[in-house]
């Protein structure tokens, strides 16, 4: 090779000793060579640039989602507001339906020194508190009614707009009417921050909470659990079926029309658009078999069918890589065909099979389109207990948040993408390590 590649330079030497007649446009040809090479480098650089831009966009928009502004202040659980007529002994509903947001608002107003008669001021104060405070205080009181009438220090979520402002995502140079947070509220925000009442905490809610129309209270809990169920179903179904199918096709199948048909089929199924699997799931599992909509079970089944071709193709490659001498040796020692495969070939192919499976699973984890069609675009607030309960999935949650108009959801969406990408990276790194650790080359 080195001989060949130096031949042009030898040609140049020749051209130098005998000028004019040997001029075969070398200068132009070398320029073309350099241009061509440059195009190649530019193409790779272009691809990598956009990979970098994509990741940069997601991370720069999303890293703040892992923090959440919280307000910690003393809250007076005033009997006047919660239970004016002292009915709670006879009517337990009273404590559930009490006006808790006012409790929180008054507490914050007191800290900020806003008079209880200043209606506009109170409204502005209310705009700094997340609506989720209603549920939080209600749970506190119903769990322990004796705190009514006392003053407790409570940490609750700041409103999504305040959260954005506190993280510096709202441009304060915009005219006051055109932004979601007023100058007065910004002033209060700074006061609260200085006194330490307003601070950023790690956002556990992002990983625990279910769907919510309020960005500050929305989380990925349901989506993560839903995705987990689906991955389990995909793993449990597609690994054995995929391996069994590949063993048959690779080791046993005679060359005939039926096996040819299966082969062509599998190659085509691997290339069928994923949304078609969604239509299949909708028609077969939901309309025909009557499984519930939005259930992780149906999602898992659809993703299984989608992943099977990938796993089969990877498994067949792994089985093919086991040298025939292993088979001949086992057969020569009297093992049956089935024993040869299950005792010798399969264990040797296992690392390759598992690598392929993990990559297939990672693919399934990021798949969105088929899940949209089987009703997983749902507002699910409670973590599903079984795979038959309504659930969402990580990529579907990202899709739903990406469609939300509020500024604070952009941050959440990017955060959710980061979570998804981290899962994918972990799976792929796992696959690579597995391959490095166990792969044998014959």
């Amino acid at each position: 090779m080195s001989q060949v590649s130096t031949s042009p330079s030898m040609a140049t030497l020749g051209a130098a000793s005998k000028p004019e007649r040997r001029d075969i446009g070398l200068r132009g040809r070398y320029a073309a060579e350099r241009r061509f090479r440059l195009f190649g480098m530019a193409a790779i650089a272009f691809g990598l640039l956009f990979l970098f831009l994509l990741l940069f966009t997601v991370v720069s928009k999303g890293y703040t989602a892992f923090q959440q502004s919280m307000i910690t202040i003393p809250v007076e659980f005033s009997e006047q507001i919660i239970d004016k007529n002292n009915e709670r002994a006879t009517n337990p509903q009273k404590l559930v339906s009490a006006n808790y947001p006012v409790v929180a608002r008054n507490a914050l107003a007191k800290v900020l020194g806003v008079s209880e008669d200043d209606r506009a001021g109170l409204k502005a104060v209310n705009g700094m508190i997340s609506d989720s405070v209603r549920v939080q205080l209600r749970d506190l009181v119903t769990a322990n009614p004796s705190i009514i009438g006392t003053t407790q220090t409570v940490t609750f979520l700041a409103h999504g707009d305040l959260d954005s402002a506190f993280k510096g995502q709202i441009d304060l140079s915009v005219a006051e009417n055109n932004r979601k947070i007023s100058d007065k509220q910004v002033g209060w925000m700074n006061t609260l921050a200085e006194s330490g009442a307003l601070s950023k905490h790690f956002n556990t809610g992002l990983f625990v909470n279910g769907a919510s129309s309020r960005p500050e209270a929305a989380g990925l809990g349901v989506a993560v659990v839903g995705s987990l169920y689906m991955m389990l179903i995909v793993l449990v179904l597609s690994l054995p079926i995929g391996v069994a199918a590949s063993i048959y096709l690779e080791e046993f199948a005679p060359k005939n029309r039926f096996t040819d048909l299966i082969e062509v089929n599998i190659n085509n199924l691997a290339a069928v658009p994923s949304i078609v699997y969604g239509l299949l799931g909708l028609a077969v599992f939901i309309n025909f078999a009557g499984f519930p909509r939005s259930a992780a079970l149906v999602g898992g089944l659809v993703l299984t069918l989608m992943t099977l071709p990938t796993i089969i193709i990877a498994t067949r490659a792994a089985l093919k890589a086991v040298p025939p001498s292993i088979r001949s040796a086992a057969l020569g020692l009297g093992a049956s065909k089935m024993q040869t495969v299950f005792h010798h070939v399969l264990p040797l192919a296992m690392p390759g099979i598992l690598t392929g499976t993990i990559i297939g699973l990672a693919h399934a984890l990021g798949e969105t389109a088929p899940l949209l069609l089987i009703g997983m675009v749902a507002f699910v607030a409670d973590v599903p207990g079984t795979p038959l309960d309504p659930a969402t999935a990580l990529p579907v949650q990202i899709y739903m948040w990406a469609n939300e108009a509020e500024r604070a959801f952009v941050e959440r969406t990017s955060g959710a993408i980061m979570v998804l990408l981290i899962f994918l990276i972990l799976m792929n790194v796992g696959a690579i390590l597995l391959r490095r650790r166990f792969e044998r080359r014959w």
Partner: protein
Amino acid sequence: MSISLLLLIVAVIGVAGYLIGSWRANALAGGKLSNLHSRPGYYGSFVAIWSILPAVVVLFVWVIASPIYISSTVRAGFPEEVKAEPQATQNLNYNMISAIARGFKVLTAEEREALFKDGATARDVLASKGVPVAAEPAPYMLKSADDLNRMTTTSSTWLSILVVIVAAVGAFFSYRSIAPKFRARNRVEGMMLVGLIAASSIAILTTVGIVASMATEAIHFFNMVPAWEFFFGTTWDPRFAAAGATASAGQFGLIPLLAGTLYIGFVAMLVAVPVGLFAAIYMSEYASRHVRSVAKPLLEVLAGIPTIVYGFFALVTVGPFLRDISAQLNGLVTGNYSNFIQAQSVLTAGFVMGIMLIPYVSSLSDDIITAVPRALRDGSLGLGATRSETIKRVILPAALPGIVGALLMTASRAVGETMIVVLAAGVAARMQLNPFEPMTTVTVKIVNQLTGDLEFTSPQTLVAFALGITLFVITLCLNIYALYIVRKYREQYE
């Protein structure tokens, strides 16, 4: 007895069968295993398979058949005037009866008796137990519900008995057949082979399922909307608001969607093909081993990123960027700072999709370029051609069929891509040639039509299946043709 408990019992019988079978074989061998035809585990497995398999098959068949049988018996018991009503009403009645039957299960025997004497209060009584019933049930419904409950209980009892008996009988007879000469291994392996074949048939079943399910739904659709109006119609206007009203059925023209799909796919290929091909050429012909080992996996990361992430990238970064930069350009040239590129446009969706497709083009073509025999390359270089001349005049022509195949496969991905276009291409179905305006695609419309709350009987939702089968056929043709080309090409050098 619940199904899961029944399955557990069968499993226990199976495990017991395995243990007893192996023990029996060991005993027969009399301390010398070579007396046996197979190793003891095979005898155990043989017993276990015969205990579990028939029982599970019986269970499966029963679970599917029994509700059908019960339903038809209950319906046969309807009064004549109810039977005369249309099928849909009868289905409603049956659903109500099932609800009442569920309600009966939470009532005590006395309460139920009271209901039969005084049927008028049934709805209130059931509602107080937390079982909502749509309307006040007719007297015959209470009786049918009672029948339904009785038959379900009977069915469940008989099922339990039958399954346990089948499992036990299977275990008994297979145990009886154990003898030193018995070819247990061959039997077990035969059954394993059947299992393997069944697993590989799932691939066929999936295809059959795809085609059959979509075809039946699409035929429903074509009964309502003529096929030629769908395939050659130039207006897409499904009229969601008027769904159900027969007078305004809406227009379902495929052409604008197909135009959008192909246009966006074309823009994507315009980005992906040059970049992907040059990247592949550089990596296979120029790059040092070190550069290649870094750049190739990094480019392939692009293929591993979920498409929803690309969609988000298009939605929040590329779209707004193109919109703002077009406004700036417009301002510089004409002084009028209004954008001429929409945030959701053919260009945005196509460009981002193109980035997604780069690794598909590059790794497929990389494989094909590397497969071109060394001798061709050496011959050309030896004649004094530069590397780029070798690539352009020798390698690419030799690899052309394979590369065309790879590009066809990539194109089929572009046609079937969903999430990027859902987020970045827009929903307006129109035919125009300006890449700066939004257009929509087949996949976007499938998602739009099916994420609503419409009944599955309206053409508004059924059209999604007609779109789906169109998409399936297009991608199938592209792929089969691509595979055909690639195969034919491979044979040349092998």
